[in-house]
């Protein structure tokens, strides 16, 4: 029974595996190297990017959303709100930039983590010496590509429709970077939801609904002065208002530093709170 010749599978000796163990600190052939969290997160982000490259269709929403929002708002409300679509586009664009980066991560990042958690490959990662946080960070990092694509498309379509940056290239890049950073921090909320809910439908529903009060309870589409009192109160405390204000300042001119500082602060808070909560919840899941 043990002596039948081996078909197809050839025996090439592996590096010897020592029968005794317990040194525990190192894997075969590889020493323990510093920064495991960073290296493993990057390696896993590379994996997610390869997957995106092979299924570029998953980026479609990042391509389409900003276009829909621009066209919808400008031509549907432009005439009524600002009297001229050209003028309204100029007012609206900075807000749409923030809307785009917030939405670009919200749904898909959480969704891809739920899908991954249910797949066997995450099981394998979890049986390997990989920090748990790296599994989440890798997915979130890889989704940065979505923000970049969405923002590039947004600027392209905006320019075609007649939007013009009123400041300079440096400020415009700063606006894009700030919006991307803000969306990235806020996406940890959907990561937390993904880890807690572990259900595609729930995560995509919550991830879709959540941004609405955040993004629309702001001066994005109309000045706060035009809003009823309760909405104005919300808009004034809403962190996304700061991001939009900063975006308006950086793209159209006017004061931006204060709002940008508040945006960075809130981004840091989101990252710290939601990020820590997500990783803790994921570790507890074991």
């Amino acid at each position, binding site marked *: 029974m043990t002596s039948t010749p081996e078909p197809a599978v050839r025996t090439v000796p592996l590096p010897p595996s020592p029968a005794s163990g317990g040194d*525990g600190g190192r*894997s*075969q052939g590889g020493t323990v190297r510093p920064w495991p969290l960073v290296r493993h997160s990057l390696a896993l982000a590379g994996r997610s990017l390869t*997957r995106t490259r092979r299924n570029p269709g998953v980026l479609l929403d990042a391509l389409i959303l900003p276009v829909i929002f621009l066209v919808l708002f400008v031509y549907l409300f432009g005439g009524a709100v600002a009297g001229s679509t050209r003028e309204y586009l100029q007012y609206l664009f900075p807000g749409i930039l923030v809307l785009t980066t917030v939405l670009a991560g919200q749904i898909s990042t959480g969704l891809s983590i739920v899908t991954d958690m249910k797949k066997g490959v995450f099981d394998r*990662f979890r049986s390997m010496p990989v920090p748990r946080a790296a599994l989440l960070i890798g997915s979130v990092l890889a989704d940065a590509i979505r923000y970049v694509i969405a923002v590039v498309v947004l600027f392209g379509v905006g320019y075609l429709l007649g939007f013009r940056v009123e400041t300079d290239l440096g400020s415009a890049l700063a606006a894009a970077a700030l919006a991307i950073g803000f969306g990235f921090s806020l996406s940890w909320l959907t990561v937390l939801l993904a880890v807690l809910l572990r259900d595609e439908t729930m995560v995509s529903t919550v991830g879709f609904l959540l941004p609405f009060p955040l993004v629309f309870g702001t001066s994005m589409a109309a000045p706060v002065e035009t809003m009823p009192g309760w909405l104005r109160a919300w808009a004034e405390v809403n962190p996304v208002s700061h991001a939009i204000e900063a975006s308006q300042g950086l793209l159209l001119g006017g004061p931006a530093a204060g709002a940008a500082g508040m945006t960075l602060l809130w981004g840091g808070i989101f990252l710290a709170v939601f990020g820590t909560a997500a990783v803790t919840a994921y570790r507890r899941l074991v």
Partner: protein
Amino acid sequence: MRPAIQVEGLVKTFGTTTALAGIDLRARPGTVLGVLGPNGAGKTTAIRILATMLRPDAGTVFVDGLDVVRDPVAVRRAIGLTGQYATVDENLTGTENLVLFGRLFDLPRAEARSRAARLLDRFGLREAAGRPAGTYSGGMRRRLDLAASLVGAPRILFLDEPTTGLDPGKREELWQTIRGLADEGTTVLLTTQYLEEADALADEISVIDHGRVIAHDTPAGLKQQVGGQTVVVRPRDPAQAPTAAGVVERAVGHRVEAVRGVVTAPVADEHAFADIVRALEHADVPVTELALRLPSLDEAFFTLTGHPAAAVATTSGRSHDLDA
């Protein structure tokens, strides 16, 4: 020698379901421990706890001398796992999968690449190395899975139902590979619902049912434990079957009949077998098969648990001979 795997009183419950009701497992270094049990017996739960993916509720679990609760990271460096379902990324190619796992084991890039190439070669996947794993056949994916669990050169390998879903030829092939790994000194814990598989691969078998170990022994010992050997005689000329039946009948002392040219009868001891061999020679009945057969593990499982393994193991309503 210190056991490579030592589990004592392991308990795990999920809500009201008791997946493991206090099991003990033990494997010496370099041996294959078969954990045999039907669907829902608790095999996967046990493997997940041993592989540090699930925390035990009670009991102690040592893998490679390390406590899985207190020292999970060190355990993860010593083990390899092939889960019950595919644990490679379908979107990545064979090479990309193995290189990624190598990087996660902290191998330098060049070393990760060469180890990936060596493993793909070894598992007959060289031609498919550049294709996404999603395009692989079931057997190829299983082999890639096994290769992936060897990237870290583990001292202890967990295989959860490694051949489920493979056709018999591919199964034999994988068995050879698993044996080869054990011969190289890797300790293997494999779960299976196939009695034949445990018999073919394991040095020792723990039979589990409803979260309990109901027997532990070598394959031969286990078969012995449930007793009842059978003599099998197949005359070269089927026409001589009744003559052979007569010979066996006189030796065992109870009524025996030939079925389709083969005579089978339970025997009390080995002396009866020797008597039969001599009597057949004397009666000039040439045979093509003459064997003393131990009960199959199927029969063993039935004796041990009171229900047939296969009837539980499959959800399809395959009927089973309860009188076996």
